[in-house]
């Protein structure tokens, strides 16, 4: 498993070269944006249950056959397995976002995932759809554009009811683009 820093070491070692000013400049970017990154990871982990259950519910709303007899989410046991898998995928995405490198996601989650799902008869398109919803809601939580936050902003009374991350507003474009790339990685691994 690698992070942004050890990735630089491994690729420099392949060339038998020192890590020079160019690579170090991009790592300084990671450090300068570290607090934003940690807030983004916190936004995902603090809302993980909500993100996962919304995504699975959304997936089923769009395809109600899943919870009818014979569907892949039909007995509670299989529905629970689906929720668990959603959480596992989200957890590895959170690790990758923390590390700033997708190797942990690739090695420990995506490697063989598609083959496992095919062998178990899990519909890949439904799973990919759930990941796509998780992507949308995770990015909303990172950027605080989720519905709850927006409603709370317009209504003081609602602020107490909704879970608002009390972070300082800043530029999250880089870290949210990076998070989006990890979700896309999962979706393309399932495709």
């Amino acid at each position, binding site marked *: 498993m690698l*992070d942004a820093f050890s990735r630089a070491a491994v690729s420099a070692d392949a060339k038998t070269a020192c890590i020079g000013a160019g690579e170090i400049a991009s790592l300084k970017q990671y450090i300068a944006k570290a607090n934003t990154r940690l807030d983004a990871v916190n936004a995902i982990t603090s809302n993980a249950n909500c993100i996962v259950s919304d995504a699975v519910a959304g997936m089923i709303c769009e395809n109600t056959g899943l919870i009818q007899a014979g569907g892949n989410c039909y007995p509670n046991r299989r529905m629970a397995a689906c929720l668990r898998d959603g959480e596992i995928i989200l957890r590895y995405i959170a690790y990758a976002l923390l590390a700033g490198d997708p190797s942990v996601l690739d090695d420990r989650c995506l490697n063989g995932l598609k083959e496992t799902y095919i062998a178990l008869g899990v519909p890949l398109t439904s799973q990919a759809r759930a990941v796509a919803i998780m992507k949308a809601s995770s990015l909303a939580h990172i950027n605080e554009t989720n519905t709850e936050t927006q409603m709370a902003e317009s209504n003081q009374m609602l602020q107490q009811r909704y879970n608002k991350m009390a972070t300082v507003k800043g530029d999250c474009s880089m870290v949210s683009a990076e998070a989006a790339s990890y979700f896309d990685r999962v979706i393309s691994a399932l495709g």
Partner: protein
Amino acid sequence: MKSVVTTVVTAADAAGRMPSASDLESVQGSIQRASARLEAAEKLAAGFDAVVKEAGDACFSKYPYLKQAGEAGDNQGKVDKCYRDIGHYMRLINYCLVVGGTGPLDEWGIAGAREVYRTLNIPTAPYVAAFAQARDRGCSPRDMSPQALAEYNSLLSYVIESLS
């Protein structure tokens, strides 16, 4: 590759939980020292050839017998390899400064080194002399800031310990 972030992620994964607040705190803690480490790595990379040459010169001036016939540095090819090895260690120190742990040195430099040196009948004391010279030579603020120099010197000490 062992670093603060990968250690945190490995522990969280073994427990099957999301990164917790304390995990994020320890990543934050390592980030705070990172700018000094990166400064040291950058300065070392900039003066790399000079550092390696000076360290290599120090080992041959302390142990001139190495260049006598039958010793480990009795022809130019062997001498060049000594400088090359010192360069390898310095390069790994550069990686360790970036990674923020001793992972690169442990995995690519130290593991198996003792066995290799014994098999090839190479003395390790000259290497120690070379890295001790590099450690004594560093000067703050001429070369780098005090904190950066401390990080650099601690890795040199780590290499010296492993060769002693």
